[in-house]
């Protein structure tokens, strides 16, 4: 049986797709057969970040409608043969997905895959609901700002009350915090919430902090998940996230301010 992971947030643009691509690649690189599904119907983003946009023939909606089977729609990743992408449709609207159809596709994938990563669209409406409904684990991507934290909290309430696990009175979805686009200098100067602030408000199990990094944009421009850029801070932070998710102990990195460090070094204020 596969483990179904939803990458969700409530707020848009916080790094869900970046995270989905990175952790799916990270899990696959470690030898776990992984599928990553784009639930953002109408926008289609994941295939660009995975660099497979030219190879999209059939998509998630085609599979749900029975217009193609899974094997026709799944795209094998060019860098890792354990990773498959199920792209979203650009031409449909978001009503093309339905709960029963999504359930069917996930069930079929579960037979063959170890991990299924669901890249949720923004918001708390139908698309986000469908992406989280069948999840076993949730990566809640949050930026260190008040509105993002509030939306994450809202999403956590939905995970706890509207998911399949909640409805069937099963063990609840395991919820993890992924604090992304963390700019320690701006935290230091008080422009952004600190890790401690966010932890205090959400009180969630922290999987990792991803620093704000140029490498993310570079990676998405070249269609390669940032986790494969092993020299980059964001790539390393994502590698740590995957390791922690798999149960390894890793100290937190990339949370100290550079300015703060020099200030301490030279004793100034």
């Amino acid at each position: 049986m596969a483990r179904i992971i939803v990458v969700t947030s409530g707020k848009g643009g916080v790094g869900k797709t970046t995270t989905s691509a990175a952790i799916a690649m990270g899990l696959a690189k470690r030898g776990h057969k992984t599928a990553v599904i784009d639930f953002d119907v109408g926008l289609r983003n994941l295939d660009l970040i995975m660099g497979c946009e030219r190879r999209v023939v059939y998509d998630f909606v085609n599979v749900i409608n029975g217009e193609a089977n899974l094997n026709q729609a799944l795209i094998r990743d060019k860098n890792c043969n354990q990773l498959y992408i199920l792209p979203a449709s650009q031409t449909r609207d978001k009503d093309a997905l339905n709960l029963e159809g999504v359930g069917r596709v996930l069930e079929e994938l579960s037979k063959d895959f170890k991990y299924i990563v669901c890249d949720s669209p923004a918001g708390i409406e139908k698309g986000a609901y469908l992406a989280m409904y069948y999840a076993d684990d949730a990566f809640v991507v949050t930026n260190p700002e008040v509105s993002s934290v509030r939306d994450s909290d809202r999403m956590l309430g939905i995970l706890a009350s509207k998911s399949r696990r909640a409805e069937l009175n099963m063990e609840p979805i395991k919820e993890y915090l992924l604090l992304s686009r963390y700019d320690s200098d701006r935290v230091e100067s008080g422009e952004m919430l600190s890790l401690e602030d966010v932890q205090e408000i959400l009180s969630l199990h922290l999987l990792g902090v991803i620093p704000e990094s140029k490498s993310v944009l570079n990676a998405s421009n070249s269609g390669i998940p940032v986790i494969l850029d092993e020299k980059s801070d964001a790539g390393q932070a994502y590698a740590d996230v995957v390791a922690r998710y798999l149960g390894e102990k890793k100290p937190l990195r990339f949370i100290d301010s550079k300015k703060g460090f020099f200030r301490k070094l030279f004793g100034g204020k």
Partner: protein
Amino acid sequence: MNQSSILDFRSATSFVPILVLYSNDMEMISKRLQEKIASAPGFFRNSPVLFDLSELNENDMEIDVAALISRLRQLSLFPVGIRGGDPLQEKQALALAVPVDSGRSRSNPVLPEVQKKDDAVPEFQAVIRDAVHAPAMMITQPVRSGQRVYAASDLVILAQVSAGAEIMAEGNIHIYNTLRGRALAGVQGDIEARLFCLDLQAELVSIAGIYKTIEDLKEISRKKPVQVYLRDQALIIQELS
């Protein structure tokens, strides 16, 4: 993931506020309801509600069920059940698509014998009513932004209550964690109700409709256990030592 499923019936506990009527004066009922709704519009607007006529029937007070239902609907409530009604009242309710909720009708022997005595004095009845108060509702998971909890009893919460969450109880509220959302105790007018929490950072606290908002709470020191209660119609917030 059931391949061919079209629908499912699931057993679940859901929390629907129960409107217990002690008066059959429709205007008074309306007025009081409007006040209640104004005190927590987010909670009551479009809320389902069960109405309970057992007190009225006990005291032979007649009520026009059809008028009551239409009044509730006018006030943006959705009556979803009738309790403690007599067969005629139940029939009238059904005709207006409000089903009978037999969860705790008068025929169920929940009340102690004493109350059935004809000569029971009113004060005595009040005591009895407390004695049959439902057991406290217990919540172990965080109450997150956008979630609402209503307890027709005391409410005990072992996790945090987030900003943007709303919890209400007819009795006391105990939060063994941080309160950042809105918490309303004694929502049916119990001025003896109290609220306890380990860290008060609330958006609003209220006892029996008397409230303070985040603006009034600025002075309260954080990370200290406090209790909130009413004294002479004033809301007192006191550190517990």
